[in-house]
């Protein structure tokens, strides 16, 4: 504190001056993204897994022994993951590029090798670099060939330098392991259960076990609830079992306050009533409540077994050094204390939606769970083999290394990633949908997928809590980017600057904390824990000890972190209600960087930024010098963060880098989003992913099942900082269309758009659609194989038949050909018998029989063959990929959208001469109905138009960055300077009458996206066509050329109207009418005028019924139910 005189002596102006704004501090962002990249979370996590975690897993499971031979052992010394390669022939490998994997349907993976020491007979052998399996490699991770490559080198590898990486290529498809959100592990959560009682729960998670322990309230007594006990255990008994036998000690641990004593009294009483006084008695009591006792293994005593359960399963993450349960008992006491405090209202129950209580699980963590499981299985298998083989007398000595099979780990990893089914035996975890195919519809859709967060919460539940936007998500998750409907609010997206932490080593932190005055919990009695003078210190959810001067601890910790002595991702914060200091160094916390402020002065100054833009400084320098630091959600709550420099007060500790970074990648594309109604931003976030344009610089080298490209993509005229940061201006998806906001011809109602025909002639909205056809030419088990045949000839002219016209001599179409519906792309023949061995009777030819399976092109519009790829896939089969291309110009019904969630279909295409024009002779490309504005309130779109118009006039790009962007006044100024109206409204003449329009028309460029929904892919009608075999009714769906169903509601209308003959026609005659011969005597169905049952044709008459009805009768008959039809002559009714 300054003395008053000192303050008086200060210059008055200096005191009252507001903090100067730091010029262009947004430049920290590109620096941040340069270091971190857009998908650095994934890559960091994967790097941590293969470089650190893998070795830890190996160390934890490093020994394989055998029951058969006590001298036998196999010990892993080290484990490595190599660089991605492919095996070509016998033991020859060559490095492989990701693109080759995509094209050849292979897995981009690297060998996992180990160094081992083992015994062969009596020999001890060390072997190095033994492969145990293959690890799929994440693109741009430390083991990927792409890391550290320049754009030119990337181009040589057929890779787009703008591609973010962070995904896997498994069997030729790009797979993303989505970020999974879950409640943090090893933390006490006080909550209210379904009955309204307060409970405290902890999900313990260690490498071995994952269990959940509760402290619950029942009849005003406290119980310990755990899955492995058939009944809830009174806490006092558990304390006694843990060696806290003295009642006074138990109460002391929970707390010495009056109400604590009162609350604990019934518990102690219950313990006495249960006749439990000693540890032995308590353990026996607990043993009797164990749900499943261990059945096999060594026989243990009751007390040992109970103790083991307490040790391993109850609060599994709390360490029990040398069977000393002190810490675990303290932990449990604290849980009880929290429940009591919550009951008396002294602390609030925890909010499980609060983002500080969430952890994000990334590819690395998920893979490490999976790998550990597979590695354990691998070792168990080795042990089994050893157990079986060693006792047998054999000529050669048993060599365990020969038994190591690679495919188990390889297939385990590959299958999990390619199906998304994560099955982890030891946690009994089964999760589906963990991975998804990377959507390559547009660059944005691929990027958006990499930042997506999947919540573990069930989608069906109708609670709003987990779905709604939490204030604690500020800056970490995009507030707008979430899907609509089912998954709304459960699927989220990361904001631009979010970083996800990886695990940090705990040991140095413990040492540091102890050195800073934390008193070890082991040395303290229970009473001292609840003392008002101390704060309890936690590290990653475990009690470390107590501290008297918590402020000093927190401050010193932060100082050391800023100085770089401890990792920048360790967070420390006090919780005054809990009287605790939490230190967190675990992985999966979300955090983001802030500028540090002290004494009203931000540490980052314009000078630093200047150095940054000159390239003398990187983001890491800012971190290292303690100018900028990462804060996680919990630590943010202990800080005062100013949004702008002007908001800085004496209490301010941090300054936001740039406000627009609270938005994510998809929302960042929108110009002036802060002027739009919030749901519109959400709509655009969903639609930006459907916009076609460019998907990567290597798009023409890709062979995807479906790819949409724009013939002439534009960079948007109104940009945002985000657009530049994510390179959307280099890989754009849309075109700058000149838009007139006016009504025209009534073909523009309900958001329909009017397009200018001349614009379409000149290439507006023109797109290319690519399709893939894959053919494999296989070799089968019985030595037969597929064949490619040449064109089939017409018998009379001996020229190729029309369908086969395009085939070359190799039986495949050639690039450049135009293929029409039902023409053959590849003329493949397949042997009829592929499994059974061929008959090898003497004299009989061994020539197998073939059936033709030509691959035909299907589609209403012809396609061109872009390229044909002939290669082999990893199963050594011949692989043919044919890329087909269509060029489409917009037509009526195609869907377009601006960047403001305003979608519409093309309603009419108008020739240019009918279009309105301005004094300069400018015709709009698009006419949009003004009714789209008032209810949607997309003011940002109006501003985008002004920005675009001003930009066009002066030949520059304007900015529409969120919470910033170019000011409207400035844009108007530009318009006026160029002789336009300041509002952007132009004098327009009608192209039809030639007379001026009575209103001034809002006129200018808006960035329009063409969406993937096009009428050509949807149009469908049928007069007659295929029928389903079973029911003989028309097939269903466009793909099968199906009929259009007259549904039950339509049927109801016809009934109501009384159009019975129409009903009959629609439902039977046009569908599945069938003539049956029914016997009037027995009522059964006969045939050809003959009743088989009555052996007569006397009463048989022919009538029409739906085939489905006849089918029903026959099905009933097969179930021993006889449906009989009773017939009457129509004139006898």
């Amino acid at each position, binding site marked *: 504190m300054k003395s008053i005189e000192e303050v008086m002596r200060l210059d008055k102006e200096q005191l009252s001056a507001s903090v100067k704004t730091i010029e262009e501090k947004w430049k920290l962002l590109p620096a941040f993204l340069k270091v971190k990249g857009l998908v650095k979370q994934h890559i960091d996590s994967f790097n941590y897994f293969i470089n650190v975690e893998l070795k830890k897993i190996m160390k934890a499971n490093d020994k394989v022994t055998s029951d058969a031979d006590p001298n036998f052992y196999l010990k892993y010394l080290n484990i490595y993951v190599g660089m991605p390669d492919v095996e070509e022939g016998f033991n020859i490998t060559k490095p492989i590029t990701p693109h080759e994997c995509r094209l050849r349907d292979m897995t981009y993976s690297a060998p996992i090798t180990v160094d081992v020491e083992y015994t062969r007979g009596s020999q001890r052998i060390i072997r190095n670099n033994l492969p145990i399996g293959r690890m799929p490699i994440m693109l741009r991770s430390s083991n990927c060939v792409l890391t550290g490559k320049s754009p030119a080198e990337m181009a040589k590898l057929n890779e787009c330098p703008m591609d973010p990486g962070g995904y896997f290529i498994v069997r030729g498809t790009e797979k993303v392991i989505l970020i999974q959100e879950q409640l943090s592990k090893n933390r006490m959560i006080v909550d209210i259960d379904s009955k309204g009682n307060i409970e405290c729960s902890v999900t313990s998670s260690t490498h071995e076990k994952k269990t959940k322990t509760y402290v619950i309230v029942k009849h005003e007594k406290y119980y310990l609830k755990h899955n492995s006990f058939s009944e809830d255990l009174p806490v006092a008994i558990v304390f006694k079992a843990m060696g806290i036998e003295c009642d006074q000690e138990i109460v002391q641990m929970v707390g010495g306050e009056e109400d604590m004593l009162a609350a604990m009294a019934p518990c102690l009483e219950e313990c006495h009533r249960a006749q439990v006084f000693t540890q032995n008695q308590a353990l026996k009591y607990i043993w009797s409540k164990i749900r499943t006792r261990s059945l096999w293994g060594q026989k243990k005593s009751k007390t040992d077994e109970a103790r083991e359960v307490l040790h391993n399963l109850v609060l599994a993450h709390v360490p029990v050094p040398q069977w000393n349960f002190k810490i675990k008992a303290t932990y449990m006491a604290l849980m009880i204390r929290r429940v009591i405090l919550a009951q008396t209202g002294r602390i609030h129950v925890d909010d499980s939606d609060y983002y500080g209580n969430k952890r994000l699980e990334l590819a690395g963590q998920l893979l490490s769970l999976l790998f550990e499981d597979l590695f354990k299985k691998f070792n168990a298998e080795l042990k089994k083999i050893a157990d079986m083989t060693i006792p047998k007398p054999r000529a050669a000595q048993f060599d365990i290394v020969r038994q190591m099979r690679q495919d188990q780990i390889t297939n385990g990893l590959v299958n999990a990633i390619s199906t998304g089914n994560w099955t982890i035996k030891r946690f009994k975890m089964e999760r589906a949908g963990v991975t998804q195919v990377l959507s390559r519809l547009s660059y944005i859709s691929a990027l958006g997928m990499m930042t997506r967060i999947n919540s573990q919460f069930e989608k069906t539940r109708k609670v709003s809590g987990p779905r709604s936007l939490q204030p604690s998500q500020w800056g970490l998750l995009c507030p707008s980017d979430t899907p609509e409907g089912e998954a709304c609010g459960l699927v989220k997206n990361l904001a631009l600057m979010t970083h996800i932490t990886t695990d940090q080593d705990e040991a140095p932190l413990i040492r540091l904390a102890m050195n800073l005055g934390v008193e070890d919990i082991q040395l303290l009695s229970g009473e001292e824990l609840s003392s008002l003078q101390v704060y309890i210190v936690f590290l990653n959810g475990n009690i470390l000890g107590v501290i008297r001067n918590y402020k000093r601890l927190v401050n010193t910790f932060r100082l050391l972190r800023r100085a770089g002595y401890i990792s920048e991702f360790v967070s420390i914060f006090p919780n005054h209600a809990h009287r605790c200091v939490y230190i967190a160094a675990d992985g999966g916390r979300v955090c983001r960087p802030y500028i540090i402020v002290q004494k009203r002065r931000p540490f980052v100054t314009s000078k630093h930024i200047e150095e940054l833009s000159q390239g003398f400084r990187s983001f890491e320098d800012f971190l290292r010098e303690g100018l900028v630091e990462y804060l996680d959600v919990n630590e943010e709550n202990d800080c005062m963060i100013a949004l702008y420099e002007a908001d800085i007060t004496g209490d301010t500790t941090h300054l936001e880098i740039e406000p627009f970074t609270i938005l994510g990648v998809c929302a960042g594309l929108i110009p002036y989003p802060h002027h739009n109604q919030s749901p519109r931003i959400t709509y655009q976030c969903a639609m930006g992913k459907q916009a076609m344009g460019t998907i990567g610089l290597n798009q*023409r080298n890709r062979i995807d099942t479906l790819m949409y490209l724009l*013939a002439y993509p534009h960079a948007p005229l109104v940009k945002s900082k985000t657009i530049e940061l994510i390179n959307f201006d280099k890989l754009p998806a849309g075109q700058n269309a000149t838009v007139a906001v006016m009504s025209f011809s009534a073909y523009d109602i309900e958001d329909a758009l009017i397009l200018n*025909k*001349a614009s379409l*002639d*000149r*290439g507006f909205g*023109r797109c*290319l659609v690519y399709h893939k056809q894959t053919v494999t030419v296989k070799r089968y088990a019985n030595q037969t194989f597929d064949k490619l045949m040449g064109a089939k000839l017409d018998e009379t002219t001996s020229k190729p038949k029309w369908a086969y016209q395009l085939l070359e001599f190799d039986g495949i179409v050639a690039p*450049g050909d135009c293929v029409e519906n039902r023409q053959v792309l590849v003329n493949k023949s397949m042997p009829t018998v592929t499994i059974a061995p061929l008959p090898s009777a003497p004299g009989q030819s061994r020539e197998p029989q073939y059936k033709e399976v030509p691959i035909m092109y299907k589609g209403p519009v012809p396609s*061109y063959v*872009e390229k044909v790829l002939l290669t082999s896939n990893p199963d050594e089969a011949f692989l043919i990929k044919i890329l087909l*291309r269509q*060029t489409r110009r917009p037509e009526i019904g195609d869907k377009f959208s601006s960047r403001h969630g305003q979608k519409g279909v093309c309603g009419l295409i108008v*020739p*240019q*001469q009918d279009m309105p*024009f301005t*004094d*300069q*002779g400018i*015709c709009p490309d698009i006419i949009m109905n003004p009714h789209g504005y008032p209810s949607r309130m997309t003011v940002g779109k109006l501003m985008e138009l002004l920005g675009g118009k001003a930009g066009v006039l002066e030949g520059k790009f304007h900015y529409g960055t969120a919470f910033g962007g170019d000011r409207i006044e400035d844009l108007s100024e530009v*318009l*006026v300077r160029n*002789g*336009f*109206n*300041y509002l952007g409204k132009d*004098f327009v*003449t009608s*192209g039809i*009458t*030639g*007379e*001026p*329009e*009575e*209103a*001034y028309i809002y006129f200018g460029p808006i960035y329009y996206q063409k969406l993937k929904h096009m009428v050509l892919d949807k149009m469908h009608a049928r007069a007659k066509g295929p029928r389903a075999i079973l029911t003989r009714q028309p097939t269903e769906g466009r793909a099968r050329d199906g009929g259009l169903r007259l549904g039950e509601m339509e049927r109801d209308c016809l009934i109501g109207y009384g159009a019975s003959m129409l009903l009959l026609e629609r439902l039977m005659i046009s569908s599945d009418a069938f003539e049956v011969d029914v016997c009037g005597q027995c009522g059964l169905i006969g045939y050809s005028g003959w009743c088989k049952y009555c052996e007569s044709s006397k009463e048989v008459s022919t009538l029409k019924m739906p085939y489905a009805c006849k089918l029903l009768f026959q099905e009933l008959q097969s179930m021993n139910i006889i449906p009989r039809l009773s017939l009457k002559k129509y004139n006898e009714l």
Partner: protein
Amino acid sequence: MESIDEIRERVTITEFGVTNVHSSDFPGNYEGYDDAWDQKKFEKKFKVEIIKLQGDELEFDMIGVDAAIANAFRRILLAEVPSMAVEKVHVYNNTSIIQDEVLAHRLGLVPIRADPRLFEYKQPGQDDEGTEQDTLELHLKVRCTKNVKAQDTTDPNQMYVNHKVLTKQMEWIPKGNQVNLGNIGPVHDDILLAKLRPGQEIDVRMFCVKGIGKDHAKFSPVATATYRLLPEIKLLREIEGESAERLQKCFSPGVIGLLHNKHTGSKQAYVADARRDTCSREVFRHDDLKNAVKLTRVRDHFIYDMSMWKSPYYDSSCPPD
């Protein structure tokens, strides 16, 4: 109050919209006016003045006709005046990054210098190559190679030969008697058609036919043809001093002039050239000035502005009169 003459002859520009947009001078609509068609009256009133004819730019005034007639000229220019353009492209080889269809589309949009009056419309049902009466044939064959001489450079212009395919590489192949037609080919030499890299090649034959803009915009002989009405500005009171300068700024440069008023010694605004005004209506933003001016446009004075991207007419025979 507006006089009837003003309603008949002027379109009024107000702050929030345009009034009197429709022509109302049909016979019998106004008492005391004889609006019946009269050839002599029309001949006296009708005038076409060419203001500017420079390169492909043409500006002319058409005075004394109804908007419907004026618009008809504009529409015909856009949609119904024929010109030659590439219609069919035979791709013999295209290993460039541009897809065949997109390349063909680009070639179609290249303006071709040829007088369409010398050609027939191609009849449907004929083969692509056409006859000498209705089809022009062009050839484009470019192959990109490495420039062996270039060293230590990253400039593609030096590293490669033919890495840019330009319209000047399009070669006209005269059919039969077409040799006598003179200089036929793309109007501009420097339109970029595609970019190539060593080893890539484009080998196409193009067939140009006569067509009209209604069918496809590439046949339209004009880049655009448009007209505007002649603006007219009336100052309703004398405007002097600072407000005169402000008024000058409200209009396009040269519209409002400033005179030195000898009596008051300050500057006085006068309308110098209303034709230059772009009708930005900036003056309505000034509350004190907005009632001092009246903005109108002359209903029957059309200022045509067109740029001819294929200009075959004027450079051969069509005189500027």
